[in-house]
């Protein structure tokens, strides 16, 4: 084998490696993810209509390295996905969702970060606005086998944490 061929092979291997390192993933979560199991502490009955308002920054994209890829997260897509999951779950729990409702829960996704020792995990940080009060909530989803699964698991976990948050429940049940 000639030296030229050896050099070509080495260059090819390096190029392949570099190409893999700079690969970008832009999986945006769908809006039909079911919430992770949660315990909703609300008594069944007739509830006041509610509105869920997504106030996440519409333009912010956060990049997060993960294994040999770079994950690009558009925060507004996360806000939409969490809002949609929450609406679905609230309806299941007997709430009426109305755009005119006076009772509002504001959802603001402020950060998305990938953690990946061996397997990826997506961490979402949110601010929940209820009754003029702002609460910080963070997900703690499990490690997943792919970035896409990690993102979807984080959305499901985020919805579950909001639905089982005692302050949110107190606000919804007028027990604050």
């Amino acid at each position, binding site marked *: 084998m000639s030296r030229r061929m050896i050099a070509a092979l080495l260059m090819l291997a390096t190029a392949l490696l570099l190409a893999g390192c700079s690969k970008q993933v832009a999986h945006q979560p769908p809006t039909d993810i079911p919430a992770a199991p949660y315990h909703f502490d609300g008594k069944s009955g007739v509830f006041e209509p509610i509105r869920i308002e997504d106030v996440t920054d519409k333009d912010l994209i956060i990049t997060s390295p993960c294994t040999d890829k770079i994950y690009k997260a558009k925060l507004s897509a996360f806000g939409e996905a969490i809002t949609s999951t929450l609406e679905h779950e609230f309806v299941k729990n007997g709430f009426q969702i109305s755009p005119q409702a006076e009772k509002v829960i504001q959802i603001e996704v402020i950060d998305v*970060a990938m953690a990946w020792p061996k397997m990826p995990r997506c961490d979402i940080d949110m601010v929940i606005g209820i009754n003029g009060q*702002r609460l*910080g909530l963070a997900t703690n989803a499990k490690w997943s086998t792919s970035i896409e699964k990690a993102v979807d698991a984080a959305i499901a976990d985020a919805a579950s944490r909001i639905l089982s948050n005692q302050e949110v429940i107190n606000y919804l049940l007028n027990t604050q």
Partner: protein
Amino acid sequence: MKRNFFTLFFLVPALTVTMGCSIKYTSSRIMPNAAISPEKNYFVLCHEDDARHIDLTLVEEMNAMGLANVTSGFEQDMPDDTDVIVLFEDRWMWDITNYLLMFKVQFRDASNNILIARGQSVRTSLARKSVQIMVQEALLGLFNTEAEEV
């Protein structure tokens, strides 16, 4: 020629795999309209699995970066006047010896748990460094406001 080919056949994948073992990155972000102020009181929250007392290293490094009012301990030890809670996560792996694979730190407002800033340092086996260096790496981006990384 045949021997050379077989050497390369094994050398190239070995090189690729070895280079893959040497990955390092840091990532940090301060939330919009948030700041890490030296006037505030910081409390580094320990976790029970941490036998290496990483909290003490974190306190030391935060002091070195200009934050004077930093204490650490478990939740019940938290002073009432704490403004910011500092949480950390450490992931260890074994490769001949134990090494810190990932160190992640979060600054949260003590009154409402809202994230103020976060930093992360990842180093795989061949790029391993001491706990102190990785803590520094995770914090450095937060204190270097000119190099804001999103």
